[in-house]
């Protein structure tokens, strides 16, 4: 910590003396992060598309469009349907990430022979490019040639192969599973780090009291790692909301629009379905996404502060 006994003038000089070090980063983020956020806000009030890049003021027109536009041949308001779908899809993926992540972390925390090998293997997928992970999942879930159908049929669990990506509901579930899989190593590692900070003597005390493993887990371990699970889950929530690659690669948002979550819809409206949208309309949709992410970030910071108060 800085020496606070110096005179205020010296302190001020010292404070600003460090500024040049941070300046390049601030400039970089100002140009490529902060300005873009305001640019999205600005563009959300204009009619602009890749076909016609000179912005035309439309006021709240893009927002009105977002809340009223119905895609021909689809049910409901396009943006709202996609938003609702996103919430369910994120919830599903997150449920898998948190439950399997906690389970995996607890398992890998057990004192087993070969634990280090198990841990290494469990986090191996973390380094996999998301797009490649998604392609591989699509192939693994392939109706005729994929391992999942192959194994299920050999085990006699199904008679006919399932078209995991061919029908709306299976595709919705399958993409969520693939997304959860991509995010799982992160969950496992973070929760494992949390578990390692749980004092052994607390568990030992519970053991002496004759508590069964399940009781020990739910009454001792879980409450202690709850803050870690909560903050990790919030961080993961944001990333899941932003998840684009798995859905885009596996289904392109289909079949019909079954997996068209907000990120996919933003891309479609901004860059693909130029007839219906454009960059202005995509910006209005992005603003909703930015608000969502900002809200969750604030919740995340609050949870962090809470967990620090608990731990310190």
């Amino acid at each position, binding site marked *: 910590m800085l020496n606070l006994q110096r005179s205020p003038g010296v*302190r001020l000089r*010292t404070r*600003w003396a*460090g*500024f*040049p070090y*941070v300046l390049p*980063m*601030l400039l*970089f*983020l100002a140009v*490529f992060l*902060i*300005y*873009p956020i305001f*640019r*999205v806000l600005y563009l959300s009030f204009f009619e602009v598309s890749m076909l016609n890049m000179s912005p035309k003021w439309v006021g709240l027109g893009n927002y009105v469009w977002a809340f009223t536009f119905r895609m021909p041949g689809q049910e409901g308001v396009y943006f709202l349907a996609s938003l609702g779908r996103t919430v369910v899809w994120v919830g599903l993926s997150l449920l898998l990430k948190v439950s399997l992540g906690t*389970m*995996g972390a607890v*398992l*890998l925390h*057990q004192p*087993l022979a070969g634990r280090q090998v*198990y841990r290494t293997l*469990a*986090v*191996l*997928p*973390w*380094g*996999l*490019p998301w*797009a*490649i992970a998604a*392609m*591989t*999942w699509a*192939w693994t879930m392939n109706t*005729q*040639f994929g*391992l999942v*159908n192959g194994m299920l049929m*050999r085990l006699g669990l199904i008679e006919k*192969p399932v078209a995991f990506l061919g029908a709306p509901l299976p595709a919705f579930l399958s993409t969520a599973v693939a997304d959860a*899989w991509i995010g799982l190593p992160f969950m496992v*590692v973070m929760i494992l780090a949390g578990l390692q900070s749980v004092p052994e003597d607390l568990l030992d005390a519970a053991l002496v009291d004759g508590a069964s493993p399940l009781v020990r887990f739910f009454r001792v371990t879980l409450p202690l790692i709850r803050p870690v699970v909560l*903050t990790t889950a919030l*961080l993961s929530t944001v*990333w899941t909301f*932003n998840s*684009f*690659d798995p859905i*885009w690669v596996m289904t392109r948002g289909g079949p019909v629009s079954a997996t068209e979550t907000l990120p996919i819809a933003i*891309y479609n409206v901004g860059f693909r379905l130029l007839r219906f949208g454009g*960059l202005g309309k*995509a910006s209005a949709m*992005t603003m909703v996404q930015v608000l969502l*992410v900002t809200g969750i970030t604030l919740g995340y*910071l609050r949870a962090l*502060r809470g967990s620090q108060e608990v731990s310190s």
Partner: protein
Amino acid sequence: MKKGLVKLGTHVLVILFLAFMLLPIYQMAITALKAESEAWLTPPSLYPRNPTLENFIEMFEIVPRLPLFMGNSFIYGLGVSLISLVVAVPAAYGLSRYQIPARRGIIFLLVYANMFAPIMLLVPLYDIMRALGLLNTRLAMILAGSVFTMPLSVLLLSSYFETVPRSIEEAAFVDGCSRSRAILQVVLPLVLPAMVAVAIYAFITGWSQQFVLALVLIQSPDLMPITQGLYQFFSRSSVRWPELMAASFVAASIPMLLFMLVQRYIVQGLTAGSVKM
């Protein structure tokens, strides 16, 4: 006896969990190693009966530009790595050594920035790169990619700088070193492991996760990163899965192996950002 059973049961559960975590990677590996005739069996064989490396040769025949795509990803990785280091190292030093004005605000900005994904900045990044005349250039991909590696790079490095005692620098000052010499010759060597970790982390991200950015910033196939280039195995009527999986295996093993080296640091960086709020 009971204890042994519990142990055995735990092993079984761990292996089930790992089976799920490794399923696609296993699928990728066996498909890459199967002969053409075996890859298209229904139901599929669960392991390659006659493992062959022919797909690893044929992939270059089907997509001759494969080395080019890998080269592009390599350049993107290197560029993102370079920018992240050059910008993040001084920033991290400043944040850890000075009580900079609005320090809390800056750290909040970094945590907030860490929440952003390319999809949220797709429209403005496209707009800015167009205005700068950078559309369809490698520089656009590198600059845009660095936005998303910057927060974690700075947070990770500054938490590592904190572990280097100030007294070491101060001793160098006393010996008559200028501040810049003290930083270059005394401090940076001590944080070298973290710098290497950040360089590798940024490289992996640049190599792996430029997929969405490439969709809007790049039109020319010659500038495609490997994740986009793999689509060349898709034709209108079919997908050359065996060769695609061989190429994916090569493209994925590079970041996967590198990631094992830096995973520990990344976890530190992710948890450390919060600690100093």
